[in-house]
């Protein structure tokens, strides 16, 4: 087998559990909308539904978690670091969500 000697496996020293989000039913719901409705939805809420459709390989997130650098709050790799920024997330989630006043969670309101 020999795979246990592979150098990249040394880094993986802890197991990571990742919550899978179960988006299948959201996908179905979204597909109930026609072309026109989907366009209207994108206009009002950005790309959040399209993002839901992205198939996530939990394997990738588990590998990424091995590189999280807690004191620096970023992902440290061999010779570089990556930090997800507010701007990048704004782009990923679509414009109508970004460029506004940020939402600050202040505890629960009674509804």
């Amino acid at each position, binding site marked *: 087998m020999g795979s246990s000697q592979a150098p990249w496996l040394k880094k993986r020293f802890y197991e990571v559990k990742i919550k899978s989000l179960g*988006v299948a039913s959201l996908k179905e719901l979204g597909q109930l909308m026609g072309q026109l409705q989907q366009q209207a939805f994108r206009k009002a809420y950005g790309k*959040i539904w399209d993002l839901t459709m992205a198939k*996530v390989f939990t394997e990738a997130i588990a*590998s990424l978690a091995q590189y999280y650098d807690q004191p620096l*709050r970023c992902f440290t790799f061999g010779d570089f670091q990556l930090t997800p920024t507010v701007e*990048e997330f704004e782009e990923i*989630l679509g414009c109508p969500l970004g460029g506004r006043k940020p*939402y600050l969670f202040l505890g629960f309101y009674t509804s």
Partner: protein
Amino acid sequence: MDRGKQVENGVVGVPRKCLEAKARTLASQDEWAPFMDILTLLIFGVVLFPNVEGLVDQATIDAFHAFYDRKESPIVAILADLYDTFGRRCEKNSARIVCCTPALYVWLVSHLFRQEVRHICLLEGHHSCTKKKEANWDKLLASKEGVSVNWFPRWKEGRTGILISCGKFPNVPLMGTSGCINYNPVCHTLISSGDHLLGGMQPSLDHFEVLDTHR
């Protein structure tokens, strides 16, 4: 909405099934505006602020209200929750990573793979990227070097810069539904450029973290 509230593992929220059933009823009646609102609430609960399985919790409903009524952006809160879940994972070995994984995954793929076509839309580029499916992630991340990272994707062209500080403090504070956390882009650039200015700035670079006991 109050009537449908349930408590699961000490978290109060509306069951996902109820909302889905309601959305289906609205779709069959061609009531698209309320349908879209409920679909958005579901996406908020399931994808953007995931917490307890099968439940859209109160924090999510609050974030949705802020977005819907007060036009506030949930991006900062999503990012804060993301850093928070990774931080918790480091502290406690058994903790699970619960965050908006699709966004994180899209972000990761956008940096790691270079594509021949430079897409303007990040998601479009993500869908057309076929290499990600064949990748052995452990091997890929271990062998990745700075020069091969996609530092400047097409969608960033023409942008003016990024937020790296808050007032005099050289870090970006983030407030999420499960706690507050900050990140320090300045700190990273200083370290990576081998600069030793850090010593003098240390006090203000201190991290702060407030964890909420609700989660």
